[in-house]
């Protein structure tokens, strides 16, 4: 069994950005929200909804298919893992993902790939996010 992120309860989201801040801090050792896997933004301004953008752990990920150098390998449970040595920084993975879940790290010249660690879930004060177990 493997773990994947689910984001089903966004109506409770208060826009605190804790998920974004801890992801960037823990996974990329950065204080910058640019380095987070998960993004939170408004849909039509602050008076509209809050929406998340994060990897949905596709079983047949378009990002991997688009990668010309095989730098994205399939992950158990869905989604991908980045082989840094193979990545050339072409950003085709970013364009391929229709939900815009692939961020790009300009400083390291590589995509920011979610590995469903679940830290964002732990730091959400309102249980908007969850981690579920799925078949490998």
């Amino acid at each position, binding site marked *: 069994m493997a773990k994947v992120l689910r984001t089903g309860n966004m109506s409770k989201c*208060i826009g*605190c950005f804790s998920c974004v*801040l801890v992801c960037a801090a823990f996974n990329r*050792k950065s204080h*910058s929200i*640019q380095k987070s896997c998960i993004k939170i933004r408004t849909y039509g301004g*602050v*008076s509209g909804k809050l929406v998340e953008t994060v990897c949905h752990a596709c079983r047949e990920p378009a990002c991997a298919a688009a990668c010309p150098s095989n730098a994205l390998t399939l992950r158990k449970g869905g989604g991908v893992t980045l082989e840094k040595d193979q990545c050339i920084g072409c950003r085709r993975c970013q364009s391929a993902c229709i939900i815009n879940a692939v961020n790009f790290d300009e400083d390291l010249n590589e995509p920011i790939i979610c590995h469903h660690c679940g830290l964002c879930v732990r*730091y959400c*004060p309102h249980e908007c996010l969850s981690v579920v177990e799925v078949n490998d």
Partner: protein
Amino acid sequence: MIYQKTVRVLYIDMQAKKIRIVEREDLKQYIGGVGVASILLEENMRPELPPLDPAQPIVFAIGGLSTIYPVITKTVAMFISPLTGELGESYAGGRMALTMFSAGFDAIVIYNKAVKPTILSISANDVNFRDAEPLWGTGKDNVGQVVRAFEHKHSGKRSTIRIGPGGENQVAYACVTVDRYRHFGRLGLGAVFGSKYLKAISIAGGRDIPIRNFQSYFKTYREIFERCTKSDVMAKYHDTGTPINVEPLNEAGALPTLNMRQNRFEHADKVSGEAFSQDCLVRKLSCSGCPVGCIHLGQFRREFAAHGHEYETITVGYDYELIFALGTFLGLSDPKEILELIEEVELAGLDAMSAGVVLGWATEALEKGLVTNEDTIVPLVFGSYKEYCAAVHYIVSGENEFYKNLGRGVKYASEVYGGQSFAMHVSGNEMAGYHTGYGSLVGAAVGARHSHLCNGGYSVDQGMKDGNIDPDKIADALLAEEVERCMLNSLVICLFARKVYDRGTILSAFAAIGENMTDDDLTAAARRIFATKLRIKKALGFRLRSVKLPKRFFETPSMHGQLDEATAYEIMAKYQEKITALESAVKG
């Protein structure tokens, strides 16, 4: 910046459309926030010119620990207040601190007047002066929507700071709205924006700021996060929020009602925090970086045409201060009517507290014949919200001489028409919603920005027993809290978290990012910052001994009974002695 030896200041000349970035090592000793902003205000202000002169600066600053720990979410704005003519200092949350941080600026100084209405667009790599002509004078609040369109690539990492028609027309208590639901409310920053043709500022982040010592940083972050979310300390700000204050203040006889003729409201139960939660609350939001979520949004349905069942839904933020100023103070007992009046004030871009107090005075002035029906255009009567909604529009437009005068604040208006004894301001800033005792009253007089937030005077009153008035102790308590808040506001924490951020936590937070401060360092910085503010106030002509408190504060009883005028002035005199001593100590 954190990890740096310097404070990074962005200077913006609105007229020449030029910028300068200066790395200031000398500002590090002021930590950040109000500490840095005070020095920048002192350096750039022109005491010999009026507050709304184009040469006057607007200073924004974030703090020594901004955004990297929970609930350290605020940005301070400092300016010369067009309302009081002296120190202007105001705080707002939203996303501004986060975006300033990730754009890489610790402080921003804006000066001179643009040639035409402008939106400032600030990012890590650029500052743009964009045309805001189509948005000026329209009375619409779609600035955010326009900014979202031309700044599309910064989606999710942008803050929008804007004024409404109140600011455009330079009403003395016009506010600045931050990300829709937060404000630089008090003391008229909106008018200063208006006087520079500054319609809005958009700030977008983008810089990488690598964490230096991940293990110690994340451990400290986690500990603070748990205290903010798991303990009780912050819960009440989320549950019912500050509106919970209505009933206890009413019970205690400290709830300013009907222009403070009364200290209780017979319909308090109808406008209590619980009443709002049950009838109107639809959503809670937070500022970026705060897991508490204290923003309470209420909703009401409004018919916009007489026939045909034509309705619109309005969602508006409410807090205790608004329920007091635009509710109990004006005799409104229906939460939906209060929300509608809040929305009018919000669209106008005025400070809700000042607007309410001003309208309360105007109502009584009309009642007593100091002004006429011709002056007020509509009959202002306590409890009649539709007329108040109309009056808000007239204040913004300066519809006639009376409303122009009203737009300069209740102190000014009462000096023109009379009724000074019931013009409920303290040293020019309209009162806050607490008539708890000498703490709240004297606290507002001696507070550097005449706000209940300077020194939490109501807390001093809450801790006192009846009949035990020690002027020296009260002065000490107010001074100690004000000086301490100078340090807290240099970080810049949200004051709701002041119980989480005790000295020990603050020192750990600094240590975890490699800045080894001591308790004495924090105290020294606090006193240094306070002394700076006192110098600014003096340079702008403020003299504590000249403050005259409106008589009604001594006529309507407070939570601790009727207040005595002589005692109030005695506490103020003692306070003056203490700050004179502090000033010499800091200088020497």
